[in-house]
């Protein structure tokens, strides 16, 4: 199976390549490489934040989306989704700031802020994806004698999987891009280089944080794209 390159991903990779080329031409590579140890240490912190908060958002968001899509929740689901939608309109910087007022500084508020920011697209896509499964499929499944659990596992989830994955992909993209803000509330990560670079007007330092962040975003998106391509059954996968 060939690795498909969609235009958006090509553009992303192109921008990173251009940035690197520009950095080299501008003679910024040397100052960037001088931060090598910092980059490695902070990138680890950064990825740890992304993996924990993103992972937690998936583990919580998908079940919540499933729960909201159940017929017993029909009366309340739309209302709850409205709350989630309003939540999405709050800027992530504000979410991070608010979580600091609740949890202080350090890893916990950074984790919580990123978790909340990535939770919304996952819940929304899981809920919408499950509701969009054609009713006649559920009717056929019921009429054939599947239990509610079997219908969910064998019919509803596989048919909603593409939409759910898209939600997770969006959430992780937001997550990686937002993680630099964690530095502002003492959560560490590559934001430390970016914001300090801005404050000191040190372009080399700024790029030492920004370039790895961009690279990380492209890698995460690429991995999610591959997962979407290979994990979703062929019959319901528009990519195959």
């Amino acid at each position, binding site marked *: 199976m060939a690795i498909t390159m969609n235009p958006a991903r090509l553009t992303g990779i192109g921008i990173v390549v251009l940035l690197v080329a520009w950095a080299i031409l501008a003679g910024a590579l040397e100052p960037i490489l001088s931060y090598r140890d910092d980059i490695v240490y902070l990138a680890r912190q950064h990825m740890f934040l992304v993996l924990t908060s993103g992972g937690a958002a998936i583990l919580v968001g998908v079940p919540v989306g499933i729960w909201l899509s159940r017929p017993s929740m029909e009366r309340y689901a739309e209302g709850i989704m409205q709350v989630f939608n309003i939540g999405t309109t709050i800027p992530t910087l504000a979410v991070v700031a608010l979580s600091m007022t609740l949890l202080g500084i350090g890893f916990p508020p950074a984790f919580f802020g990123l978790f909340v920011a990535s939770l919304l697209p996952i819940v929304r896509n899981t809920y919408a994806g499950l509701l969009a499964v054609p009713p006649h499929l559920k009717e056929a499944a019921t*009429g*054939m004698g599947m239990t509610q659990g079997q219908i969910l596992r*064998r019919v509803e989830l596989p048919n909603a999987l593409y939409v759910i994955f898209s939600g997770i992909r969006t959430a992780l993209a937001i997550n990686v891009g937002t993680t630099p803000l964690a530095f502002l509330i003492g959560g560490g990560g590559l934001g430390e280089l970016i914001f300090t670079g801005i404050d000191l007007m040190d372009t080399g330092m700024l790029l030492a944080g920004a370039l790895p962040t961009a690279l990380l975003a492209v890698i995460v998106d690429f991995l999610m794209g591959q997962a979407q391509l290979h994990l979703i059954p062929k019959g319901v996968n528009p990519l195959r």
Partner: protein
Amino acid sequence: MIRLEKLTKTFDTPNGTVVAADKVDMEVPSGEICILLGPSGCGKTTALKMINRLIPPTSGKIFINEEDTSKQDDIQLRRNIGYVIQQIGLFPNMTIEENICVVPKLLGWDTKKAKTRAAELLDLVGLDSRQFLQRYPKELSGGQQQRVGVIRALAADPPVMLMDEPFGAIDPINREVIQDEFLKMQAELKKTIMFVSHDIDEAVKMGDKIAIFRAGKIEQYDSPDNLLAHPANPFVADFVGADRTLKRLRLVTAEEVVNADAPAVARSTGAGDVARRLASEGERIAVVIDGDHRPVGYVTADEIAGSTGDVGDLAHPLPASVPMRADLRAVVSEMFAHDIMWLACTNDEGRFVGVITQPAVTAALRATYTAPAAGAA
């Protein structure tokens, strides 16, 4: 056998109670197809879906093979009833094989047995199993999908099948083909089938019995022939259509009205012999046949009177002939197309079996009209 006893369904709506099924009593004998027919909103689909409890009945009883289904668990009941819907409902995330194996798997069949069954059923509807088993539904045409939809319902060999406008979404040409295939399958499988339709032509073609619904009540439950010949009330007459007698033409095959005693003569017979034979039998026309017993032409008594030579040389070519499996609709159509009063009829090998005349066709239609309507069940 399926028996409904005083089956009733009411829905409470803001505008009051709506009765979707009103004390429906009916019985479908084993191995027969019963069509539930009526305008939309007449309660036919509600009646069908109460049988596998997709819609729970308000009151009344349903018996399948003399067993009261209200005592059975919903899930078990449904696994033993084949169910086909208009939208087909193949699961797009599963291959054709997985789709067909859904119910066998639910019933705990051994995987190998289920797979063998899937291949067998695909071949039964003329889809090459090697080619189709591993495909996904979106890779099949509409007609192919509908065939898979039907065999999926047959997979676990249920005694009873419910079909909700199963061929409604297929183009008219494919629909005819699939209907014919289905009837052929049913002739062997002998399932007891409830079949919802809104198409009177489909009902007449497919049904052993037809139940006409209006506002949750059965207006008439009868054989297609009786229904068309003796509509019980103006609603039924209106629903089956002003051309209902023409529709009955489909119910009779050429074989049933053919006159097998019609004179047939070999090509080499002398004209004089034929003239004498026609005179003695009181017939006016003789069909000329070749060495393989195929009809090739005809001679009339008037024309050969006094002529000499073989009838093979005197014969007119036959304008048309019909296979004896054809229904009378096709026969009449041929007669009108060629402006003739009679047709030669052939069997599957093309051999001559007899002659069909227009009076014989009208006589066949008259037979049901004069027969006592008491025969209606």
